């Protein structure tokens, strides 16, 4: 019953999204469908090399976005890369949300040592230049999609933990929770039945923003050559060699970058709009009365 309530409240929030957020939601659905279905529909495999048609510029016959330095169809590569980038974003976000929510619940519900330890770790991880940490990890571990998901998770779980921790602390102190506890409810019951449903909207917002950041982080690491390895494509590693051909074939750099920038922007916009829908007071706060 509780989970039905959660879903209903999420649905209500989605319906009250600002136009900006709705556009973002449509875009995301579109991109996901395109990346999943596109490569099947398109005639070329993403690794289909055609040395007779190298460096075709966009809007060439049969290659809407042109071809790369060994004649692979760029559209197919962008869509394949999108699969990987979205997968990394989604998987690491799910992992970090689970980890972050769990730690946040523990830290917010308990006072004392557990909270101190967890908040300290959160703070420490938050203030570290993450790309250094990621690269170190990526350099010593064997590269691949699984590795990059793990690494991105490692530097992304704090946001959910912070949000959940703060909210849990507030909810714990509420009168009705105190009343339930006084009536002998177990911690487990309070956490699952009272706290979790109330933090769920905030967790969803933080997850949306985390996806955006995760896609961006994956692109950094892959761009620097420590992430997804060629010939597999990801939005980051499509730009690996692009700098070399920047002068003659700039679209090789521009197009995958637009894919990243646009998608990350849309996830951020969706998160922002969800935030507003969930807590209109934040939006109104800056307004002068």
């Amino acid at each position, binding site marked *: 019953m509780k989970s039905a309530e959660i879903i209903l409240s999420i649905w209500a929030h989605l319906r009250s999204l600002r136009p900006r957020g709705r556009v973002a939601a449509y875009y995301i659905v579109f991109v996901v469908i395109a990346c999943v279905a596109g490569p099947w529909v398109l005639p070329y495999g993403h690794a289909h090399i055609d040395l007779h048609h190298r460096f075709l510029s966009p809007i060439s016959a049969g290659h809407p976005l042109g071809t790369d330095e060994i004649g692979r169809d760029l559209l197919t590569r962008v869509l394949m890369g999108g699969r990987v980038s979205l997968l990394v974003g989604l998987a690491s976000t799910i992992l970090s949300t689970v980890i972050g929510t769990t730690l946040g619940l523990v830290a917010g519900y308990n006072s004392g040592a557990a909270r101190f330890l967890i908040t300290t770790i959160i703070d*420490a991880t938050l203030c570290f230049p993450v790309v250094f940490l990621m690269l170190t990890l990526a350099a010593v571990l064997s590269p691949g999609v699984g590795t990059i998901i793990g690494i991105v998770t490692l530097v992304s779980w704090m946001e959910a933990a912070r949000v959940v921790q703060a909210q849990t602390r507030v909810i714990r102190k509420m009168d009705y929770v105190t009343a339930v506890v006084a009536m002998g409810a177990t911690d487990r019951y309070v956490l699952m039945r009272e706290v979790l449903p109330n933090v769920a909207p905030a967790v969803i917002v933080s997850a949306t923003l985390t996806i955006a950041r995760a896609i961006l982080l994956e692109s950094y690491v892959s761009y620097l050559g420590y992430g997804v390895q060629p010939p597999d494509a990801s939005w980051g590693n499509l*730009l690996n060699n692009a700098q070399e051909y*920047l002068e003659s074939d700039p679209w090789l750099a521009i197009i995958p970058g637009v894919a990243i920038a646009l998608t990350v922007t849309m996830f951020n916009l969706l998160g922002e709009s969800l935030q507003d829908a969930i807590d209109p007071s934040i939006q109104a706060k800056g307004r002068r009365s």
Partner: protein
Amino acid sequence: MAEGMLAFAARRAGVNALLLLLVSLTGFMLLHATPGGPLAQFSLSPGMTSERLNQIAHSMGLDQPLWLQYVKWLGGLLKGDWGHSYRDHAPVLSIIISHLGATVELGLASLVISFLGGLAMGLIGALRAGEAIDALCSLVGVILLSLPTFWLGLVFIYFLSVRTGWFPAGGLMSPGHASATDRLRHLALPAMTLGLVSIPVWGAYIRSFAGDTLNQDHIRTARALGVPGWRIVLRRVLPAALLPLIPIAGVYLPTLLSGALVTETVFTWPGVGRLFLDSLQYRDYPVALGVLMFSAVLVLMCSLAAELLHHAADPRLRT
């Protein structure tokens, strides 16, 4: 915030100590305990025998137990002996310092750009809260926040260097040219790249702090006493928005290093970020570990400096 000052200080100290220990331990373990380990660089060179490899390992103390190596290394760090590069045997600390200038130059220039941009964006948003221009500012902020730094750098290189020839595409300066304008021209694109993507960070905080201040009663009092709007912004809103920004800046500034690393790569800018990447590439672990530790120390120093500055600047914190 029911957290007392003492608890806060304790937590701060705890965070700092833990951070240093965490970074040193993970960094050390990662680079020493993984397959290949610190010797990977040597084992790859042609004609290397296992005998010779053992010899090298012994001479570098790599045959000792890991914990002992860690303790020795940590002790050295404290004494200022950060080890030697595998590549050219130069002391790690002096290598880092020799790359520091370029990063500081890039960091400061981008800081000026991002701070001024964020200030303008935040103030406009707060003063015109709820109006179209506020929405526009927040939209621009979200977009800037979502741009991959390296891609923005490539776009700048293509349009402002390759196509127009206005700026050089990379490097610290033209060989043989040491003029100030030449250096500024080289600095322009990387600083703009790193600066632009950091604008929304300042912008969002300033928007929120300035908005809070504008809603406070004393602003209304000032207006009731006939204080002009620009004076209210300058004397009341701005100081109130910048004060809480100081500790945030202390936490945020070191994370600029991440952006600097990517920017330095795109623009072949010889700073600490590139040094780190290069040393990872060549498996020059003492240097990589050194940079990692250096950034952790930087985090601590920045947050400490920010805290001191905040205390000095906020009259409410003085006793």
